[in-house]
């Protein structure tokens, strides 16, 4: 059963309190972020759970979850490389970086490695054009990417994963 831990329930209440009485639907986008943080992706059970927390119809949650690009509607790897491919990054060689990551991990954009560790995704402008090429990994940006930096990031993830397992 999908269920937030106590601290997250508290956080949801805090978020709802930011809005005027009866406007708890405004909490939907932040609460979906909390859900994705907790469960990794948004299954229909998770979305139904969020609907019940905010007293919304499930459809109100589905239509929002499918609109915004940051919500994962299927499982993703433990580390997601979201590489920007829009113009300013392209001018600084993002195409080569995407190709390099793909070769190195043996996957195409949109795919996840068989071990479930890495997902490669191409995304549109992340507002880091001056530090291109770049990607988002979890909460943070990795900028001024080179092949060497990509190698180091992949190693870093593998090391981290092996200590977690």
């Amino acid at each position, binding site marked *: 059963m999908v269920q937030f831990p106590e601290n997250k329930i508290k956080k949801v209440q805090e978020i709802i309190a930011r809005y005027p009485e009866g406007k708890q639907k405004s909490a939907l*986008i932040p609460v979906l972020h909390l859900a994705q943080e907790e469960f990794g992706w948004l299954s229909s059970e998770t979305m139904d759970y969020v609907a019940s927390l905010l007293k919304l119809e499930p459809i109100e949650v589905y239509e929002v979850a499918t609109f915004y690009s940051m919500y994962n509607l299927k499982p993703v790897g433990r580390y997601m490389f979201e590489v920007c491919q829009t113009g300013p990054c392209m001018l600084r060689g993002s195409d080569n970086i995407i190709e390099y990551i793909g070769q190195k991990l043996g996957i195409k954009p949109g795919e996840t490695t068989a071990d479930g560790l890495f997902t490669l995704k191409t995304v549109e402008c992340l507002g880091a054009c001056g530090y291109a090429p770049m990607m988002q990994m979890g909460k943070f940006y990795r900028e001024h990417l080179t092949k060497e930096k990509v190698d180091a990031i992949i190693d870093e993830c593998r090391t981290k994963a092996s200590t977690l397992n």
Partner: protein
Amino acid sequence: MSKKLLLEKAHVEGIRTYDVYRREGGYRSVEKALKTMSPDQITEEVKKSGLRGRGGAGFPTGLKWSFLAKPAGVPRYLVCNSDESEPGTFKDRYLMEFIPHLLVEGLIVSSFALGSNRTFIYIRGEYAWIVDILEQAIEEAKANGWLGKNILGSGFDCEIYVQRGAGAYICGEETALIESLEGKRGNPRIKPPFPAVKGVWDSPTVVNNVETIAAVVPIINIGAEEYLKIGVGKSTGTKLISACGNINKPGVYEIDMTISVEEFIYSDEYCGGIPNGKKLKACIPGGSSVPILPTNLLLKTAKGETRYMNYESLSDGGFATGSMMGSGGFIVFDEDQCVVRHTLTLARFYRHESCGQCSPCREGTGWMEKILKNIEYGKGKMSDIDLLWDIQRKIEGNTICPLGDAAAWPVAAAIRHFRDEFEWHVNNPDECQKRNYGLAHYADPRPLAVPA
């Protein structure tokens, strides 16, 4: 050296923290505004300063504030638009990340002016770590009495909350942002009613960009009259420019809008020229939506005059031979870059970001991407170029929100100024896979328009 009003202290060590920010003169504008000015006086001051919205549209901020409806007993809201997503633009991020208290300070003064007791910062979801930085700054401000109940004994209450988006360029459009803040899809609303009358939760709302709100701080501190003196004409004060692409020193620069485009690109104080001795081919001076200009029209207007980094000069010549200041996202192309390929990435961007409400935008952006893809990969026909032109014409002006225009303009300008590069792709389908068209004649001096 340009005068700096926003980023002057951005490099002071520890400026992110309240103590250092306060020591450096922070929150003085709140003291001045709440203790010595009325809300209407602040609005008047902002009006007088000539401040124009820094998000891209350049609408006079004071005028926008004066439109806010004030029915008795109805709450009013200020929402800060931190959904910075226009390709080429990363100035708001810089400001929020390095000097977050400046935004908080500006928000308190602006909230007081507008009567907003509950103010929201709507920030793009990807800037996740900046949410922590802002919430920390808000908490510090509150702990020191700048937020909460009866601030400085003025009787004014204010809370600021940070709301994260979840990945949608369209939420930078103010009515889409409001929808998103209400927990819905980011579908822009039909105007009127304007947010100033009916905004978030049907209450009167002002939505302002981060840099706009930050600029309120120096306006109050030095006064509108002093602020006006910086800059030129209707381009008053300073502007943050995010410079990127093929330049030696990409980054965020605060300029006073009196410097020339040429100086901005080549001076060591700013972009520091083009790397590897390459030549300048083209530039998009105000974020991806504004027209791209070839070097010869970028550095000089069609009349042969020097082009400057301000609202009027960048748009000199209209869309025929000029561009726009837009959001200040300054994208530089060296001679090796392919304008067709770059335009393709922008078309893909706008297709991806179209909310899908209006057919011309939903369908048109997809068609433009497909056609551009064909041309870029050597499968285009000569008639495709005219078809592209035709599609962009039919999107522009035919949609609820400006995303349609924003998608149409880059394609239009690329064809207008680089048509021969598109034709070269069509005529040389194999060669265009191996090399780019290059600089061609794009930096050659243009014959001056003969007066009629």
